[in-house]
C-alpha cells in the first residue's frame, strides 16, 4: 500500500515536504517511521518529540495505516 507523508519544520528539512511511501498492508505508524529512518540518519533523534497524525488526527505509533492515508509528521509546535 502507499501512504502520503507530509513533514514539517525540522523533520521536513530532513525528509522533504511530501513523499509517497510504499509499505506492506497493515503496517503501523511505527513501521512507517522506521522505514523513513532507514534512509535518514537524523530522524531517530526526533522520534520522541515528533507526533504522528493520520488523516488530520494525532494517533499513537501502534495505529494501523491504510492505503491512501495522509500521514503528517509534527515536531513540537512554535506558532503565534
Amino acid at each position: 500500500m502507499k501512504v502520503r507523508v507530509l513533514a514539517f519544520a525540522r523533520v521536513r528539512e530532513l525528509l522533504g515536504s511530501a513523499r509517497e511511501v510504499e509499505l506492506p498492508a497493515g503496517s503501523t505508524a511505527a513501521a512507517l517511521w522506521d522505514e523513513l529512518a532507514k534512509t535518514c540518519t537524523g530522524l531517530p533523534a526526533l522520534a520522541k518529540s515528533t507526533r504522528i497524525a493520520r488523516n488530520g488526527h494525532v494517533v499513537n505509533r501502534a495505529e494501523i495505516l491504510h492505503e491512501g492515508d495522509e500521514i503528517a509528521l509534527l515536531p513540537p509546535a512554535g506558532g503565534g
Partner: protein
Amino acid sequence: MFAVVSEPIDVAAIAREVRTDACGAVVTFAGVVRERSDDDRPVTGLSYEAHENMAAEEFERIAAEARERFGSCAISVVHRIGDLAVGDVSVAVAVAAPHRSAAFAACEYAIHELKRRAPIWKKEHYTRGDSEWKTNPDRANSP
C-alpha cells in the same frame, strides 16, 4: 473565520467581521514579529509553516471551547505562513462579546491555546545569517 493565510493579515478587517449589534466589546490580539529573539539576538525575520487543515480545525476547536467557557459571541483566528519581516503580523485573534471581561478572557484563552496546540512552526532568522526553529515553552507535545 479560521484560516491559515499567505498574505498580510488585516487585523481591523477581522475585528469588523466578528462584531455584531449584540456585542458591546471587541478585543483583538495581534502577534507581531519582534526585532530581537528571547535571548536578545537581532532578528531579521521569521519563516512560518503549518499543516493548514489541521491548524484551521484546531482554531475552530479552540474557539468552540472559548465560547463554552466565556460565552463570547464571535471569534476569528487567522495565522500567516511564509517569510515575515520584523513588524509583520503573524497571527490575529478577534473576539466580540456582549461585555469586555468575556471578550478579553476568550481572546487570551484562544491565543494561549493556539500557541500550545496548533500545528504551526516558526524559524527565526538572525542578522548573522544563521537560523533556528523555535518551540513554544508550554506546547502540548513537550517531550
